[in-house]
């Protein structure tokens, strides 16, 4: 038996030190053993790994699961009990009961007694050497004794976990979350846009997850909304009758130039007329003034005669440019009119006139009031770049707005993402946007017959770019714009023919109806459908049919009912009959659903279902191939998105108000997801989340991090040096920002975040009636944040919890409320040194990372397994699951901590295959 709490052998430390000296690493720290050693983060990571209890020859994880073990109370009575009495009972016994823990009252039978959960806490405190406290020499625990206790606890805990497995309390049977429901609808119907989110918001579990089976409630309101959304989605996917006439605008820059020229000529004429009138009036005044005083003719009027030079136009505004002559005109405002018989999707000859759109500028198109209420608006823009400097990028964003009356206005970004403009100006290429007109904010007055409030709607094309200035500044050059709605690639659209497919039975409503239902139900229920089940829906169809003009309209109502069935809305795990206990395994088809909900946040596709139906999904090679295929699919982005958001609690960013730059805010939220994808895609070690020698950033974030030479909005992996003070997820701007108070860092929030999200060791909630820090006290106001916290900690009521939380947060003091690195706070140098509860010193963020690497790798690996498994199963994990989790952690550590490997370990685990 090994003792995983023991310290590194001397030889190991010495050799690591030597390696480090050779590398010229620069930090010094106190190791747990009190020895001075210079350790780089890489070296700490290597050394820490060696210490893992999961890498020992005989890991203490339960062997021979399935055999019902027995409690080993004998060892407790002989050895462990007396040791507790000697070193622990004084504080955790009848006299003091610190932390409300009475060790004398805990039942030593962990397998059948009620106290296994508390014993696990005891195990954690002992194995991390947090207890007994070092400053209590009277109660010191000899290393050998500690080993005996920890070994016994470890064995008993594992045995207890196996025993409790059979009396499971939590189930993965649950309804889809709102986002899963939305994705599933989209995937079934082939709709490109999410439906407006009308479902009541979800409750977040204490773990931070939104997909927890015990919190996913169903209410009449929720059910009603499903019925409404299902019908709405089906109506959007299907069509009836002839192809509707599209409203099409074609904006030809040559015509715009002609308009602008005419407008200017008109203005000149009016100005000239005005000037003539003024001159005449002035002359009359002069004539009247018999006294001989000369009335001054305003200089302004004299000037209007001079023609404006083209060079006087602001080069920073969108301008029309005649390619040949170089003549420039401002884009004239004015309503665009739809064209009758305009053909869409054409590639016209290059225009002799182009529009130059400088960085940050918008071309605002007045579309009057003709866009339809529903349907897709296709916007095609032929655009290029005026310069091809590799460090600069330009992209297009669409904004939709209306200004109905004074102060009653709105505007909204409607493009899902900025589309990069990459072609050179002389070889422009089309960029396409599809906008769902029924889902965006529209001008409610567009159908008025009166002109007020104003009815017009505007589409803005914005150039989002990092271009520098100067003569040859990068502009977006546009020569042709087409706007068309409702737009259909084909008629009837594919979403329609996927439901109402071609069939020789199309003329026979009964037969064809069954065919349609059979295919639809199979997709919705993720399983083969019985004839009797189709019958039920056909009899509903029979009731509906007389109320509708066409087969399709009646059938859409029937299909909508299928979208409200529990088998669509819930993730099932069937049993043979209700009286039996759950089977050992869920079915292959249920496994397919669990897999797709895990990796796609949606239902399986045909291929996955086929493999499951053939009974091959559990063959390791097939399963691995499917996981690989699924992770390579664009839908896998939903996994990184939703898991990372819930794991790290990123929704807290939505209530952050001190990040005013929306581009920065979006980049902040995106970074952890992009980082996770990098680690997952390359099967990198999960330890990279703690620290890595790279960052995954875009230009905006790189600016904040002071990483040079990162251009463009897309995220990419870049190397970082120690001087950058980045790497890993802990110091990413979003974590620092959401765990601040809006003005400054907030060590307490950061500490709680570390414990909850990274260490999976959440602190207890604060007790009621704790004294708050009195910010009206001038003495306290003078203190730094760290001093204030220390002052608060000195309060006995606060100390027991805060001494565990604060040190983690103080180590982040070098990062301000936006996550930028700093060395000074209000003229004082930053003090980011803290001491953990177990007297481990953390010297700033490097110290913290080094400590995690040296001593907490196993804990982080366990946390990661725990978090991913909770998400994958959609239920809270309990004590009964811990033996399985330990086994998986051991496998992960042995295989080298790769995140991709972890996904594979999870999906092939017994837990993932169990109800």
């Amino acid at each position, binding site marked *: 038996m090994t003792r995983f709490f023991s310290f590194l052998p001397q030889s190991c430390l010495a050799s690591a030190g030597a390696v480090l000296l050779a590398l010229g690493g620069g930090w010094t720290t106190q190791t747990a053993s009190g020895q001075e050693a210079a350790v780089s983060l890489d070296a700490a990571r290597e050394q820490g790994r060696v210490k893992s209890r999961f890498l020992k020859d005989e890991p203490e994880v339960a062997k021979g699961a399935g055999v019902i073990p027995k409690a080993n109370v004998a060892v407790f009575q002989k050895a462990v009990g007396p040791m507790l009495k000697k070193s622990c009972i004084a504080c955790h016994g009848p006299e003091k009961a610190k932390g409300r823990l009475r060790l004398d009252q805990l039942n030593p039978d962990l397998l059948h007694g009620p106290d296994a959960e508390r014993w696990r806490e005891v195990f954690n405190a002992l194995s991390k050497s947090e207890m007994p406290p070092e400053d209590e020499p009277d109660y010191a625990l000899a290393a050998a004794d500690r080993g005996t206790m920890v070994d016994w606890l470890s064995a008993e805990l594992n045995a207890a976990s196996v025993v409790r497995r059979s009396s499971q309390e939590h*189930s993965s049977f649950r309804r889809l979350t709102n986002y899963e429901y939305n994705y599933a609808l989209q995937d079934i119907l082939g709709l490109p846009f999410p439906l407006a989110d009308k479902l009541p918001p979800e409750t977040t579990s204490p773990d931070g997850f939104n997909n927890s089976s015990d919190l996913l409630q*169903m209410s009449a309101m*929720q059910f009603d909304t499903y019925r409404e959304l299902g019908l709405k989605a089906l109506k959007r996917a299907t069509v009836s009758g002839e192809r509707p006439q599209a409203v099409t605008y074609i904006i030809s820059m040559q015509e715009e130039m002609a308009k602008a020229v005419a407008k200017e000529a008109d203005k000149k004429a009016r100005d000239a007329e005005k000037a003539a009138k003024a001159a005449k009036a002035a002359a009359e005044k002069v004539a009247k003034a018999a006294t001989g005083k000369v009335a001054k003719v305003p200089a302004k009027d004299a000037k209007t005669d001079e023609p404006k030079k083209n060079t006087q136009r602001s080069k920073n505004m969108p301008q029309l440019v005649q390619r040949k002559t170089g003549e420039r005109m401002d884009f004239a405002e004015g309503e665009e009119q739809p064209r009758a018989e305009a053909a869409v999707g054409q590639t016209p000859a290059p225009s002799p006139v182009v529009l130059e759109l400088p960085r940050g500028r918008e071309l605002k198109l007045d579309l009057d009031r003709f866009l339809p209420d529903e349907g897709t608006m296709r916007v095609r823009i032929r655009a290029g770049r005026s310069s091809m400097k590799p460090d600069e990028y330009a992209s297009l964003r669409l904004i939709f707005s209306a200004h*109905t009356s004074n102060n009653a206005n*709105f505007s909204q970004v409607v493009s899902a993402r900025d589309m990069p403009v990459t072609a050179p100006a002389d070889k422009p290429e089309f960029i396409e946007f599809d906008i769902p007109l029924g889902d965006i904010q529209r001008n*409610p007055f567009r159908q008025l017959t009166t002109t007020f409030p104003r009815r017009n709607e505007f589409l803005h094309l914005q150039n989002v770019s990092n271009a520098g200035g100067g003569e040859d500044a990068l502009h977006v050059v546009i020569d042709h714009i087409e706007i068309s709605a409702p737009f259909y690639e084909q008629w009837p659209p594919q979403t329609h023919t996927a439901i109402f497919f071609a069939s020789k039975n199309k003329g026979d409503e009964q037969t064809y109806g069954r065919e349609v239902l059979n295919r639809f139900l199979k997709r919705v229920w993720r399983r083969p459908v019985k004839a009797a089940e189709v019958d039920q829906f056909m009899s509903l169809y029979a009731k509906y049919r007389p109320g509708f003009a066409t087969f399709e309209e009646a059938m859409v109502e029937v299909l909508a009912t299928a979208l409200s069935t*529990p*088998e669509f809305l819930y993730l099932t795990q069937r049993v043979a009959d209700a009286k039996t206990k759950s089977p050992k395994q869920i079915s292959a088809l249920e496994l397919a659903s669990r897999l797709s909900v895990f990796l796609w946040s949606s239902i399986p596709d045909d291929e996955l279902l086929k493999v499951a139906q053939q009974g091959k999904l559990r063959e390791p090679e097939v399963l691995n191939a499917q996981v690989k295929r699924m992770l390579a699919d664009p839908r896998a982005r939903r996994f990184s998105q939703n898991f990372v958001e819930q794991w790290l609690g990123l929704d807290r960013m939505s209530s952050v108000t001190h990040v005013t730059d929306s581009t920065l805010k979006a980049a902040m939220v995106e970074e952890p997801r992009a980082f996770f994808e990098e680690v997952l895609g390359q099967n990198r070690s999960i330890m990279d989340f703690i620290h890595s020698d790279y960052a995954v950033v875009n230009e905006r974030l790189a600016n904040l991090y002071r990483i040079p030479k990162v251009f463009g909005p897309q995220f990419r992996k870049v190397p970082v040096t120690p001087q950058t003070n980045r790497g890993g997820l802990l110091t990413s701007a979003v974590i620092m920002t959401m765990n601040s108070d809006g003005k400054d860092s907030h060590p307490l929030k950061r500490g709680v975040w570390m414990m909850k999200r990274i260490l999976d060791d959440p602190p207890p909630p604060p007790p009621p009636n704790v004294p708050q820090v009195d910010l009206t006290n001038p003495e306290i106001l003078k203190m730094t944040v760290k001093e204030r916290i220390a002052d608060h900690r000195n309060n006995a009521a606060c100390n027991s919890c805060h001494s565990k939380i604060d040190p983690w947060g103080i180590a982040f003091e070098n990062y301000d409320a936006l996550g930028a690195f700093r060395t000074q706070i209000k003229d004082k140098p930053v003090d980011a040194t803290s001491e953990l509860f177990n007297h481990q010193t953390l010297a700033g963020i490097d110290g913290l990372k080094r400590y995690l690497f040296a001593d907490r790798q196993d804990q982080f690996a366990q946390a990661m397994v725990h978090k991913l498994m909770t998400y994958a199963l959609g239920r809270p994990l309990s004590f009964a699951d811990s033996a399985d989790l330990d086994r998986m952690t051991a496998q992960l550590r042995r295989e080298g901590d790769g995140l991709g490997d972890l996904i594979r370990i999870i999906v092939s685990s017994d837990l993932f295959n169990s109800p």
Partner: protein
Amino acid sequence: MNPKSHPLNRRTFLRGSGVALALPWLETFAASSRAKDATPKRFLSVYHPDGVGLPLKSDPAGRDWSWFPRGGEKDFELTKVLDVLEPLRSDITIYSGLSHPAARNVHGHSNADQYLTGAPVGGSGPYQNTISLDQVYAEHAGDFTRHSSLVMSTNGGVGGPRGAQTQSFNREGRPIPAMNKPKQIFDLLFVTSGKDAAARLARSKSALDLLIANTRSLGRQLSKHDQQTLSQYLDAVRDTELKLEKAQKWLTTPVPVVDTRNLHLDAEPKEARLYFQTMYELIYLAFLSDSTRVATFQLGRENGEGPHDLLSMAVGLGSAHGLTHAVKNPGGWKNLGTYNRYQAEEFGRFAQKLKDTPEPNGSGSMLDNTLAMHGSASSSFHLSRNYPIISAGGRNLGFTNGRYLKFGKGNEDNQAGAGIVSDAGWTGKMEVEELPLAKLFVTILQRLGVESDAFGGETGTLTRV
């Protein structure tokens, strides 16, 4: 599984299920508490845009034409603007020093959107609102009546973002279209609805039957534990069935027959008094017949033009919005005051009518069981502070009237003028502290019987009310 057999009250249920109070309507409980709500509790909010006239103390018009009364809580003296309410003195309360914190820096032209919601809708860019006070109450009381609420405005529809033409917003923060044609409102309330509704209802019932059968067959294939989870779904379907039954019941229940003598269903805003009185009469009839217990009514839209202006022009004044900007013209304060006086007069006429009608199914008058609010979300010059608010009635709900309640700090000397003492003060930095209006909303909700201690992000009630 029978929802009626749950021996729970709403509060223990919420605690037990571990969900926050944000849960939507729980029909199960609403249905079972129907019996004890024999006497209706009603709520009305009337909104007028553009604020009121608040001449400075030093202005010659200050004494007569400032909207807020002179004097203290009980011995207040109504100015010429509100003196038409003197006969109702013991039935009204006037509030000052209240506003929505989220809107204080937003231009008053956008204020109709957030008067009943308190949401931070901002001044430009993307737009998101939250549920309005009346709809929170409608979720509670809507089950007792044919219509959960009656939403009206002179301009109708929803208006535009930051230019609302409705006071009511649903749980998702989406505007509920207001009705503005007396005929249309009358038909909705007192004329039987068409065949289409019956067909839709029949379809829904067949669908629910199928879903229940389908759920049962799935249930047989689940473990005991999972069956418990699925029973929630079954409950939801059953609750929906009950709702359909209610709809069915209303479909077959004859619509109430009302006295139409005072109705001029073709009245238009240009005949302002007639139109006003007809709209108020419709609310009165809807309340009297217990067709609904919740109503909102918005007079015009912020920033003028349209029917709103017709209302003021009809009484011989200029455009309503113009009046608020022309106060420094000769007689300006008086003109604006006269217009506000006329709004108060019509509101008073309505309140008086409720007072004169004994409660059909309870004690006291209809006014005693109704809380009717009248207000705007700006004071002078569209400053989004010191909202001018009157409430009438509600004696049986726990409101003590006949009072002028002043709130806030730093405005003690000049409560009526939002603490402002000079012309520059209207555009300067505001030092006065006001209380969140949402606290009054919480008080109102609680007195209407809604268990709630927060609204629009504000927790707690308004003391002294």
